[in-house]
């Protein structure tokens, strides 16, 4: 069963995102939360890296954290699914294990 990875740091500030995708196995999921939501933005200098990672891993982003930082669903990379807190709980329940990258 697949693992859910959560990333809560900006890809511009820490290497947490890189470490996560380097170890996320094909078929696993990554949920971007807190400052990690910055990775979901379209048209940034890291968005190509995110798109590439999406070939093997399903990406989710926590909507409330996105909106707090002034970003809307239409500003994120196509294919990243927006979830709310209930969706976060569902993802946690659906995956066998959760790895919270800090």
């Amino acid at each position, binding site marked *: 069963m697949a693992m859910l990875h959560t990333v*809560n*740091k*900006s890809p*511009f*500030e820490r290497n947490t995102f890189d470490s996560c995708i380097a170890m996320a196995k094909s078929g696993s999921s990554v949920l971007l939360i*807190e*400052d990690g939501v*910055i990775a979901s*933005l*379209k*048209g*940034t*200098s890291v*968005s190509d890296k995110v798109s590439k990672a999406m070939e093997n891993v399903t990406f989710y982003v926590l*909507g*409330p*954290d996105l*909106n*707090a*930082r*002034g*970003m*809307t669903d239409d500003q994120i990379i196509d294919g990243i699914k927006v979830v*709310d*807190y209930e969706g976060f709980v569902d993802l946690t329940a659906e995956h066998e294990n959760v790895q919270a990258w800090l």
Partner: protein
Amino acid sequence: MSEPWEDEVEGPVKKFMFVNRKSPYGTVYALESLEVVLITAAFDQDVSLVFSDDGVFQIKKGQSTDGIGMKNFSPTYRALEGYDVEKLYVDKESMEERGLTQDDLLVDVEILSRAELADLMDEQDVVLSF
């Protein structure tokens, strides 16, 4: 009779620069910086704010914090003018790396290159980093 602390005392005015480099809400740095900026302005000091790296997200338009149960303090940046804090600078490269333009920002700012920001930083008496 006026109290001693009400007397207008002409103290020294120093040039303070606040360097904001972190996204809001994920850490408390952005809010703390704003607090110190307001305190510094209350002492009639010469205040400059720089937004660089993820700090540019602090002044991103359309912040809505209802979903995370935190106070949206972004309107405060628009009120800074009322405290005579009018020198707001944004690092051009940081903005571009994040796919942002001036239209995405909620306050009027001057957009500078890193070389120009370096010169500005060099002129300061005090530089505080958040």
